[in-house]
């Protein structure tokens, strides 16, 4: 047997088995080492899988040697390979950062459990991205959600508990909606394998249960990905969670939810069904625009940086969904690109905010006055990422916005181009709030602990900030993968 052949299984199983190991070890340092090794291995595997898909097409792996649709299949295609690289890459970046960060933000007794939960969350997200089975998606969704609730609740502020509870309620409703949707599809097709389901659905296209399933899945997943009116859980959750958790979640959790949406839309329902029979296009366009403007506007009026950027996340999700609503290959490319680019940008921002919180004792705007003098590098990083959020050329955010504009032009929707630029102005406004406070005000005397940012935190953050610039200049990997994945999905080749 060769290891290569089993990479799809190992991708998920290694972090999964590392999690109980950390509980058995019950030791902070050992748990950290285990988690670190597991996540780096997972990153390596995901890159290997990506290469494999790049050269050999879809990789299918039958778990338990039961052929699908009887058993559960792991299926790596271009889109899932791309997602795997994003998720495991972020985990590999965030974990070293955790080491010192949890010292400040999580009670000491819970440290090894923090790493356990982190591994489980990683497992869940990877499992969702790789599986080819509808019910398996639900199971792994719950693994990632449950661990996320705990991770958020480990934050120091007591509001973290309430945020986590609200997320638990909303998340569970969302998951139950997804189960209902999957159930209806299952009743109509008799199968749970996504590919098989897609093929068999062709026979019952447009019937009531299928449309209802589409609606339930859309609402359920939208809850998970915090599409505008269903986003209430997100700002609090991101704001009060420990900062490595915010960084990891912002970069991956909502993105994986988008992936699930794409997966169901294009691999199961098929685009003709999604966009032809229901006014999905219009609905998504509307919600995306509403999200872009409303959430960005709310972001401007936040007094805490973490909340500010959390609302900005809701706004950015609007862009992602906007690309989807174009129903074209270039729109989809923009969606997938923005998934990746926004993921690394937000990850970097929350990491930097974590460092600020340690040195300045908090992230509220009144506290970070004069940050530019006290932490010049860090604030410069935040500004760079802010530019990426706005979409200034030379940053990753520009690339995805550019493709979004192209897609809008392709559809001849000039007014949309205008709206996208207008909403970018809102982003300028909220980033400017940071700049104004950090650079043009004198430092407050009473703030600022004499703490240095540890290297293990600074280095990953710097790397990610660098990545937002690098992926803004060198676009071969991201644009290439995204456009191929988009073409693959639109072609409906499965």
């Amino acid at each position, binding site marked *: 047997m060769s290891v290569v052949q*089993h990479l799809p299984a190992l991708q998920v199983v290694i972090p*999964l088995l590392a999690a109980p190991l950390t509980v058995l070890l019950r030791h902070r340092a050992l748990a950290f080492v285990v988690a670190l090794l597991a996540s780096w291995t997972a990153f390596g595997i995901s890159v290997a899988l990506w290469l494999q898909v790049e050269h050999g097409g879809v990789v299918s792996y039958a778990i338990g*040697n039961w052929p699908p649709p009887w058993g559960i299949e792991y299926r790596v295609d271009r889109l899932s390979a791309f997602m795997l690289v994003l998720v495991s890459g972020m985990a590999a970046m965030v974990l070293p950062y955790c080491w010192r960060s949890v010292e400040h933000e999580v009670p000491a007794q819970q440290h090894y459990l923090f790493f356990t939960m982190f591994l489980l969350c990683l497992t869940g997200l990877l499992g969702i991205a790789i599986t080819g089975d509808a019910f398996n998606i639900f199971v792994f969704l719950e693994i990632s959600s449950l661990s996320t609730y705990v991770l958020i609740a480990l934050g120091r502020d007591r509001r973290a508990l309430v945020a986590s509870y609200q997320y638990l309620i909303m998340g569970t409703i969302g998951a139950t909606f997804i189960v209902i949707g999957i159930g209806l599809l299952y009743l109509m097709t008799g199968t749970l394998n996504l590919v098989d389901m897609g093929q068999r659905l062709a026979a019952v296209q447009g019937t009531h249960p299928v449309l209802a399933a589409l609606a339930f899945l859309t609402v359920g997943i939208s809850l998970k990905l915090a599409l505008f009116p269903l986003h209430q859980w997100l700002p609090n959750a991101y704001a009060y969670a420990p900062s490595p958790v915010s960084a990891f979640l912002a970069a991956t959790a909502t993105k994986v939810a988008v992936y699930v949406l794409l997966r169901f839309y294009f691999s199961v329902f098929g685009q003709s069904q999604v966009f032809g029979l229901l006014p999905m296009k219009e609905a998504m366009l509307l919600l995306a625009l509403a999200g872009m403007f409303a959430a960005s506007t709310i972001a401007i009026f936040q007094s805490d940086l973490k909340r500010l950027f959390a609302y900005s996340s809701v706004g950015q999700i609007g862009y992602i969904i906007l690309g989807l609503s174009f129903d074209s290959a270039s729109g989809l490319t923009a969606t997938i690109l923005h998934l990746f680019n926004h993921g690394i940008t937000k990850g970097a921002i929350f990491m930097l905010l974590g460092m600020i919180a340690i040195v300045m004792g908090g992230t509220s705007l009144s506290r970070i006055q004069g940050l530019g003098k006290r932490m010049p590098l860090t604030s410069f990083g935040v500004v760079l990422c802010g530019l990426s959020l706005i979409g200034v050329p030379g940053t990753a955010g520009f690339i995805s916005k550019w493709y979004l504009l192209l897609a809008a032009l392709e559809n001849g929707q000039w007014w949309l181009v205008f709206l996208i630029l207008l909403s970018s102005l809102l982003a300028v406004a909220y980033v400017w709030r940071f700049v104004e406070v950090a650079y043009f005000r004198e430092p407050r005397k009473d703030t600022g602990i004499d703490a240095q940012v540890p290297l293990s935190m600074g280095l990953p953050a710097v790397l990610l900030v660098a990545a937002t610039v690098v992926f803004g200049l060198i676009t071969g990997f991201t644009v290439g993968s995204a456009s191929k994945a988009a073409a693959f999905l639109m072609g409906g080749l499965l």
Partner: protein
Amino acid sequence: MRHDLILRVIAKLLIPFILLFALYVQFHGDFGPGGGFQAGVILAAAVIFYALIYGLADARKVVPEPLVESMMAVGVMIYGGVGVAGLLLGGNFLDYFVLDHDSVHGQHRGIFWVEVGVATTVSGVMLKIFYMFADRGNADDE
């Protein structure tokens, strides 16, 4: 409740039967309803029953916390171990066919260990959760 003789005697009589029933559910799952999860729940219920009658401290002596916490992890490891064993023996992950020369026999073996894993984790988790909640209750009284 600690001095209620009748309760204690009844409990002493009942608990072995509950344990036995748990084992029955566990290993008879192939033929009738039941399996690892249900057995795990029943197993945990037996210990919780014991704790209610004899007090938390006594239950802790019988089933100490570190053991419970390890059980949670070990169960998952057993399940995963079966999967990895399949890998090592040349099959896919969770491939029971290769666990024995006879593939059907291999299936039996796989299912058996998998169910053991489930029961271990489930009973561990249920007990742990019970201990945790009970602990909190005492904290309030201080």
